């Protein structure tokens, strides 16, 4: 099989590391399929939110009354920057096999991601205390907390995964298995970005406009 046929989605290691590249084909393909299944879950949550943010308000507040666009915008920036930082970590892995470089950029990614989760928790706190809008208040808020909460849970799991990978990079070095895991984590992390763009647009922007 020629090298071009073995190309896979994600960052290809062809020129620098043909062996891991060959092993990547199957696992990365599998991980893409997992992500597809995960995206179906998000699609279902989006659909539920779409119905409930209109019909599930009951006696509770409306979307425009509880959302803080500034905070959501800052969260978007943090998450996009973290994806960018992860990109640098992957470049370090591909071209330099530089442990320190990879670890450094992973740390930056992790801090930005943690900042995102922290800000989101703060949003929840403000919504519950200042606006009287806990998930138990209405169907709309239930759907809101589940959608954004599932995303936040994914980001948090990504952070735990990142911590484990940092230990593996430090302890096991840049072996093919570690590289492949980093590549999958990268796909996961970028997908969460994509989902968040959907949330920012659909939940926050539409919510405040309508």
């Amino acid at each position, binding site marked *: 099989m020629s090298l071009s046929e073995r190309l896979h989605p994600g960052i290809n290691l062809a020129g620098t590391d043909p062996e891991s590249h060959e092993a990547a*084909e*199957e*696992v990365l*393909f*599998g991980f893409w*399929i*997992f992500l*597809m*299944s*995960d995206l*179906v*879950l998000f699609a*279902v*949550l989006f659909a*539920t939110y779409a*119905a*409930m943010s209109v*019909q*599930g*308000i*009951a*006696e*509770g507040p409306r979307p425009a009354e509880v959302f803080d666009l500034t905070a959501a915008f800052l969260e978007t920036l943090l998450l996009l920057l973290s994806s960018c930082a992860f990109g640098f970590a992957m470049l370090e892995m591909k071209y330099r096999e530089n442990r320190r470089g990879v670890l450094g950029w992973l740390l930056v990614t992790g801090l930005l991601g943690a900042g995102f989760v922290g800000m989101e928790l703060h949003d929840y706190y403000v919504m519950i205390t200042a606006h009287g809008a806990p*998930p*138990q*208040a*209405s*169907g*709309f*808020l*239930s*759907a809101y*907390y*589940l959608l954004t909460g599932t995303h936040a849970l994914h980001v948090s799991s990504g952070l*735990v995964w990142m911590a*484990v990978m940092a230990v*593996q990079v430090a*302890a*096991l070095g840049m072996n093919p*298995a570690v590289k492949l*895991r980093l590549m999958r984590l990268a796909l996961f992390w970028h997908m969460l970005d994509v989902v968040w763009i959907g949330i920012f647009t659909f939940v926050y922007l539409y919510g405040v406009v309508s």
Partner: protein
Amino acid sequence: MNWELVFGQIKWTSFVFAGMIENPSLSEAIASGAGSLAVLGAIATVILLTVKGWWVPLWRDWLTSVDHKRVGIMYIVVALIMFARAVIEAALMRAQQLSAYDGGGFLSADHFGQLFSTHGTIMIFFVAMPFITGLMNYVMPLQIGARDVSFPLLNAISLMLTVAGAMLVMVSLVVGRFSTGGWSAYPPFTGIEFSPDEGVDYWIWAVSLGSIGSTLTGLNFAVTIYKKRCPGMSLFRMPLFTWTTLCTSILMIFAMAPLTAATIMLALDRYAGFHFFTNGDGGNMMNYANLFWLFGHPEVYILILPAFGVWSEVVATYSSKRIYGYTSLVYATMCIAVLSFAVWLHHFFTMGQSANVNAIFGIATMIIGVPTGVKVYDWLLTMVGGRIRLSTAMLFHINFLLTFILGGMTGVLLANPGVDFQVHNTLFLVAHFHNMIIPGVLFGMFAAVQFWFPKAFGFRLHEGLGRASFWCFAPGFLLAFFPLYWLGMMGATRRTFEWSNPDYLPWLALAMLGAALILAGFAFMTAQFIVSVRRREELAAPLGDPWDGRALEWSIPSPPPAWNFAVLPQVTARDAFYEAKKDGTAYRSPAGYEDIEVPRNTATAPLIGLFACAWAFGLVWHIWWLAILSFVLIWAVVIARSFATDTEETVPAATVRAANEAFLAAVRAAPGVTRDQEMTAANRGRAIPESLEGGAGALAAGAAMEVTR
């Protein structure tokens, strides 16, 4: 000391036996009896394993194995155990309905509600799903010439999650009660307001564990089929069972997520006071119906497609003919897979959407009959001019063709919203879906067991007892379910535990008779396993090809070695092994052998299954320390495993060579059997190929080839 911190909501009255002591009745006695059976069964298993010294082999060879063949067999064992429970429950329900004329009967309404909920939940999630998954696990990698699935450990984890779910349902026999909300668990009845006890929670977590396992299975198999086919096996050379496995896997990847979403939302409503499906505060119970059937309808096809694959293999093999219309069967499979996502709304025609929406979904539903009809014609035409042997599997197939068409026709009736408004909540519906699932899925799986058993264990099943089980199952099914159509049209509602209309009685009696026959069929099947194991010497077929098989799985020894194929096969046509037998290239020694890497056994999967079961149990009973601890432990196992580096072992080329050459020598030395002898003791698994496609000349050539060997 606060006992609730330790035991959550479990009290001594939670145990099923307490009901018998406090409030003795026949209904409670039956519940206690079932609970005792579960406990005694567990104790008996422990004693048996200890006395026979089987703990070590069980752990070493099975529970820790990641070999797709062993995983597949374990799946099917789970399915059969759960089948025993669910079929007994079915008979119990029939007996109750028969005896409940004018307020009689021996079960309480609540007990009856639990019975139909567990029966449905078990049959779908812990019989049908594990059965098809086990079969796909065993057969598909062999058919595509692969050494294993793409992710062997993930495969074992999927199994153990399913087992954890099944164990949770079994635990509900003893501790607490199960849901009374049916297998679909519609809120608001299943919400905390109307079902405040632990029953629905058992349902939620058992189903969630099973569905996570199925999602992982789907992605594993799809990747395996895309990436692990042997050289030359293009998509349109894949055996039809592999095709249906592919479509099923894709359905699993997409369809299980809505179920997970629905169960999570229901759990949040129940545990945390959210308002997804509640009556007030903006809840929307119709969204549950949408989410559940967005999974539930494709699920029907997840179950039926693998059975369609089995029928395609069975009918071609036992007719000694190439399958008629291979390409149309493939496209029909894909059409069905796509259409399965376009019809979910027919499950709630009567719940308030507009007439136009109903009409669209009604038409979409009827369209599924077209590709399914294509398949039926293909199977019929395969038999035309074939050399048909009425083996047990083939009997099941022919019975399936007749009964499945009847079920399909009542499905088209139900797809008409006007008719559906009349009969949707009656036994007519119950008759319809049992009419699809029993001949379609269950009989398909029974046929698959008859067909592939000699591949998995190296000996055939006793044919006489197989036929006896068929001759109970087939009429039993007709008697048990066809009266329900009539009852439904007379207005008998489903899930009803007592009656007052005397016109129902004769039909209920007939249905009871059918249930008894089905139980007899199951007894014969059990006897068939026992007798076959006892006579395994006489039934042995270690040479691997007892039925003159067509796909690659028949080209290797029975049971296959851990590495499946000594050398990865090279395929040039459909029906690869059959073609090789025809042109004389089968059973050739390869040019050379290489070392083979196989994954090492690991305790990862059983540990995850154990902790997942404990986690779910903790959640059901609000034992928070247990839930948190088990959840942490699950992920601790996953993370610890990711640090393991020595996960594979090497089988040296010499070992592979010795095993394979010994097998080939045995095959070459064997005389071979004709189709007339295939059910006799002479059948050691070397078939003389019977080629109908090539005409009489090829047949004679085949026989001549035998003589010259």
